[in-house]
């Protein structure tokens, strides 16, 4: 059996956090004292292990100790805690925080004769926080990250040991040394409506699909992707042909995005992705774009099972399963770098941003192998300088060929797609490459303002913006087509029209929907009220609704009210109408009268049983009662002790009634009547078996039903005929006759071990021959000997 690796969500990691204090006992005395020093200063070295442990546990819970500690934190530690506060949760993905800390606090480079970096070096700043006891690994281990040369295993998340959020202020990080581009030409920006449309369409397609499957390796299952693609009409894209841009429109990106935003949930045990019942997807999609950007940007940072660009020289861990990778690290660094732009409204060169990032993290972070600096033994200062220059050049070239390409793809790809940046060309650039970028309004809100505007204010703004009602943005045509102008539609309006109509065609500016009875019905079933449907359609319309459309929509809504399918209902059956009415009048039963003897009850079974003496309870799902005794000849008897409300009706479809209401008969006529109403033999057999006390149908009757139906293969041909039979005492004699050259022409077939069928016209001749050869065949059939009955 294959095993699926489980990747807990941050919520699940957060739930495990209280255990962190308990894990302290597994830490050595030296490390504990070092951690204690953060809280009590040099006095910590006088403590023994137990007292240091108790002091730490006490301090974690003491708000005053936490406040005092905050005053003594290093800038790096303060920034680390601030980055967690920005996420509004006490746990964070390891890769993300490690890269962000490295970007904010680069490790000084001080080469002497040589300098080694390893793939674990970019955890240095994060490890410092672990060592000081401000953070702990969420996997219960206490060792630092990147220590093991042989293992690429990295605990996915780290958590805070105490609540620092009250004492940590959010402050803008220092600006990167970047010069704005003096001029930008042919700027391109993604229309907000386009993105909202795709997000909404994805959410609705997923909802219609009901869920998606994962493979044993934790990847999205192809059949689920294909179904989603089909529902969305996005089709399959050729990744190589367009440099990866088309992948943005693939369902993998959106699946990952929705999972990372906690809107979808992964159940690893069931290998299933489903809607997170706590998430309000529709409400999220109806938020203004800048409020949504604050959801999608962090989701993009934590996105799994998707990659901006596959680098030839790179290696990854967890890439085949679905854990955090170095992509997440570089995404975190890139998003933070965008928050560190000197001017949030200026254009910058992507290459300059990449270089600024390289200066800070490039020596310790790489998708591939990190370069090493080493001067030859006993080298002169000139040789050392040359070796150092070569190291720097190799490092820069490697970054340009790998990480910079990745950064270009990330900015031109997902960041543009999510509406966080807009792009432009440089004047006089003949390549016409989109080499400039600047933050959009949404990008500024999600990446830049988060450091400059308090979280409470952000939330308040978010809530107030949700109230937006929108303007007239569509035209409803008499043929039930709705033409929507994307630049005028609010997310809420797009969400609404996507719910009630069927998308016909779309381009960057206009989307056309058709209102159909089915789409309107589906919207009503999802909870849109008939009046709300008409009002919202009218309020968003640039012209009054065509009278025919308004009338028909009203008719469709009214038609739905004429028929209901009530699931999981409970009905109370009384002996007669008087008893039923008395029960209702007494107030013991709450419900609605149905027909002569029934009440459709409104209270729970438990409450009902508490107030009324019941003759019994019959449950029909998932398994109905089995009151039927079915015989070979088609006779069906209902066990009166187990008779239920539905059994007679169920039998009526496939059997004939008799004078006795408890006896029915399955006959050729009843089966053929069922067939004429569209039943198949299997359906009849299944219905009877589902209610049969023995849970199966007598084999003879099953064949009879199939025979009456004219099923070609069952029961198969049978024959009742008189044919001369030659029997022998044993198989060897039969063999001898069957293989005899002059007897064989008189024989038809061998049946069983000791019998042969004889050609009717050869009986005389064969008897004569057998007589002649001493077999002396008799004229009585040789019956098999009956076993003696035991006394």
């Amino acid at each position, binding site marked *: 059996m294959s095993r699926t690796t489980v990747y807990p969500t941050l919520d699940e990691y957060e739930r495990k956090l209280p255990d962190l204090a308990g894990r302290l006992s597994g830490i050595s005395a030296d490390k504990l004292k070092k951690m204690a020093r953060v809280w009590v200063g040099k006095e910590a070295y006088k403590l023994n292990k137990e007292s240091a442990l108790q002091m730490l546990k006490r301090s974690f819970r003491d708000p005053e100790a936490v406040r005092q500690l905050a005053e003594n934190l290093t800038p790096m530690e303060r920034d680390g805690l601030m980055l967690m506060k920005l996420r509004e949760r006490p746990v964070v993905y390891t890769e993300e925080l490690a890269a962000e800390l490295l970007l904010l606090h680069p490790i000084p480079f001080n080469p002497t004769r040589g300098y080694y970096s390893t793939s674990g070096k970019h955890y240095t700043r994060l490890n410092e926080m672990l060592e000081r006891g401000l953070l702990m690994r969420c996997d219960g281990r206490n060792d630092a990250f990147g220590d093991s040369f042989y293992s690429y295993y990295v605990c996915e998340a780290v958590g805070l040991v105490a609540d620092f959020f009250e004492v940590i202020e959010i402050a803008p990080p220092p600006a990167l040394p970047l010069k704005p581009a003096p001029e930008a030409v042919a700027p391109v920006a993604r229309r907000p409506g386009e993105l909202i449309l795709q997000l909404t369409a994805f959410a609705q397609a997923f909802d219609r699909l009901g869920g998606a499957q994962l493979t044993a390796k934790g990847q999205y299952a192809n059949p689920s992707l294909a179904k989603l693609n089909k529902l969305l009409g996005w089709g399959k894209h050729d990744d190589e042909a367009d440099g990866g841009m088309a992948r943005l429109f693939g369902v993998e990106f959106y699946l990952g995005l929705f999972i990372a935003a906690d809107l979808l949930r992964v159940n690893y045990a069931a290998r299933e992705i489903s809607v997170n019942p706590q998430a309000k997807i529709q409400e999220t999609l109806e938020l203004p774009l800048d409020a949504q950007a604050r959801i999608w940007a962090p989701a993009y940072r934590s996105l799994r099972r998707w990659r901006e660009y596959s680098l030839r020289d790179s290696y990854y861990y967890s890439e085949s399963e679905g854990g955090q990778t170095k992509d997440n690290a570089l995404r975190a660094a890139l998003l933070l770098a965008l928050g560190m732009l000197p001017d949030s409204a200026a254009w910058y060169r992507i290459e300059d941003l990449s270089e600024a990032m390289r200066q800070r993290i490039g020596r310790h972070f790489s998708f591939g192998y990190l370069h090493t600096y080493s001067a030859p033994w006993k080298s002169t200062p000139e040789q050392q300088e040359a070796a150092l220059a070569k190291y720097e050049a190799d490092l820069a070239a490697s970054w340009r060929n790998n990480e910079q390409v990745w950064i270009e793809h990330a900015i031109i790809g997902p960041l543009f797609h999510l509406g966080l940046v807009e792009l432009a060309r440089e004047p006089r650039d003949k390549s016409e490459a989109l080499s400039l970028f600047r933050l959009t309004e949404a990008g500024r809100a999600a990446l830049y303002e988060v450091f400059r505007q308090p979280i409470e204010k952000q939330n308040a703004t978010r809530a107030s913006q949700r109230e937006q009602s929108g303007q007239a943005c569509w035209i409803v045509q008499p043929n039930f087509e709705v033409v929507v102008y994307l630049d005028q539609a609010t997310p809420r309006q797009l969400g609404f029209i996507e719910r009630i109509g069927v998308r016909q065609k779309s381009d960057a500016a206009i989307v056309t929907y058709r209102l159909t*009875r089915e789409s309107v019905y589906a919207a009503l*079933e999802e909870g849109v009220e008939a009046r709300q449907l008409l009002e919202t359609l009218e309020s968003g319309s640039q012209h009054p609704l065509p009278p025919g459309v308004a009338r028909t929509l009203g008719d469709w809504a009214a*038609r*739905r*009210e*004429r*028929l*209901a*399918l*009530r*699931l*999981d*209902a*409970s*009905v*109370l*059956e*009384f*002996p*007669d109408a008087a*008893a*039923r009415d008395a*029960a209702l009048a007494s107030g013991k039963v709450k*419900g*609605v009268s*149905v*027909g*002569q*003897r*029934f009440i*459709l*009850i409104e*209270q729970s*079974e438990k409450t*009902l049983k508490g107030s009324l*003496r*019941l003759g019994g*309870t*019959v*449950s*029909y*799902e*998932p398994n*109905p009662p089995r009151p039927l005794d079915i015989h070979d000849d088609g006779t069906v008897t209902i066990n009166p002790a187990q008779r*239920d*409300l*539905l059994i*007679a*009706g*169920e*039998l*009526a*479809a496939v059997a004939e*009634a008799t004078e006795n209401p408890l006896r029915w008969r399955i006959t050729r006529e009843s089966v053929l*009547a*069922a067939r*004429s*109403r*569209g039943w198949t033999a299997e359906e009849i057999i299944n219905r009877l078996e*589902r209610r049969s006390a023995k849970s199966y149908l007598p084999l003879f009757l099953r064949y009879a039903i199939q025979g009456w139906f004219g099923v070609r293969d069952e029961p198969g041909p049978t024959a009742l005929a008189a044919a001369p039979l030659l029997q022998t005492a044993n198989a060897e004699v039969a063999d001898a006759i069957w293989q005899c050259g002059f007897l064989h022409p008189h024989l038809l077939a061998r049946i069983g071990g000791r019998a042969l069928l004889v050609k009717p016209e050869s009986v005389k001749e064969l008897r004569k021959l057998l007589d002649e050869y001493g077999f002396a065949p008799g004229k009585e059939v040789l019956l098999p000997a009956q076993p003696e009955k035991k006394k």
Partner: protein
Amino acid sequence: MKKSKTPSALVSAAPLAPAESSLNAPLLHTSLTLVETAEPELLEELLADRRIGPLLVARLSDCVAVVAPGHAKEVHRWLLKAGHTPRIVDGAA
């Protein structure tokens, strides 16, 4: 809507009119799927439908019938196919 060619008696009358019960105390039937119509004519129409009719196995009143156990989804699908737009109601009245 396709109607059954066979006499409707086999489909509806006898089985769908529950025999007078010989109950002494009320009997509770749970986990049922009901079809409820605004007018008796609509239920008659459904009972006469060759795909939906046989799946309605007890008639509680002029406007309420019970769906055969395990066939709720099938009835929903057939109703949609027959041009109806049933309201899906979960649970009690």
